């Protein structure tokens, strides 16, 4: 996936979501805020759809990380539970980025693989359940829980469903990276 284009689209979507949310909270600017917010969500949706089609783990993780970061930034400061959950998700994704780098180094990753127990609890389809899988499994649960929230805005619900689908796609693509790294 074109990285420069991806960055442009992520920055576009997040700019409009950011300004849109602030517009909602400003008397007299609610309508403009709604226009920008909906556009930002639509842009985010198309980013997630195209990332899924490309099945590019780097694009998938970057898009998800950017929007989690934005969620944390725009979170109500009194919502301690969400702040804690999002902060934790970001920490896990930071580790996932490191795993994505590590898997590119065959020799290093083959060494790492020897340290991961072969018990099923520590494996995903026979491959190490490393930071990438741990981050994505945890985040899937988080999004599934959010989807159970009553009264979700339909456009936000669609976006969450797409993000959830992307997490599985990212893990499948990552398994392929692990397979290549561990091939003799």
């Amino acid at each position, binding site marked *: 996936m074109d990285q420069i284009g991806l960055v442009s689209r992520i920055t576009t979507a997040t700019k409009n979501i950011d300004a849109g949310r602030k517009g909602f909270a400003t008397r007299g*600017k609610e309508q403009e805020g709604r226009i*920008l917010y909906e556009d930002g969500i639509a842009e985010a949706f198309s980013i997630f759809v195209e990332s899924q089609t490309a099945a590019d783990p780097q694009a998938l993780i970057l898009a998800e990380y950017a929007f989690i970061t934005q969620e944390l930034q725009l979170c109500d400061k009194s919502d301690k539970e969400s702040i804690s959950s999002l902060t934790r998700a970001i920490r896990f994704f930071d580790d996932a980025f490191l795993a994505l780098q590590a898997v590119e180094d065959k020799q290093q990753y083959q060494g790492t693989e020897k340290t991961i127990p072969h018990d099923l609890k520590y494996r995903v389809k026979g491959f190490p359940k490393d930071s990438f899988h741990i981050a994505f499994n945890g985040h899937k649960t988080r999004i599934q829980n959010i989807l159970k929230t009553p009264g979700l805005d339909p456009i936000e619900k669609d976006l969450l469903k797409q993000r959830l689908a992307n997490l599985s796609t990212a893990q499948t693509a990552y398994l392929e990276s692990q397979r290549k790294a561990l091939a003799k």
Partner: protein
Amino acid sequence: MPQNQTMTLDEKLATGCRAVELKKAGDRDGYYRLMETIPIPPYIAKVIKEKMGAEYLTGRNLSEAEAEFGPDWLSK
């Protein structure tokens, strides 16, 4: 508008809405060009710098990131 011009919320809303009108009229290039004039939120600029590299931010409006993190932030 100069590349690193700051914007008030009103200006961002007005510019963004004009951009959305361009998109609705079928001008996606015009939409993205106008959107590029709006400053990137600092927390997103930080994500791009840390996870992709500073080179992906070259030529973009970083006025808010520079105000928050310092004028030499991108090169540090």
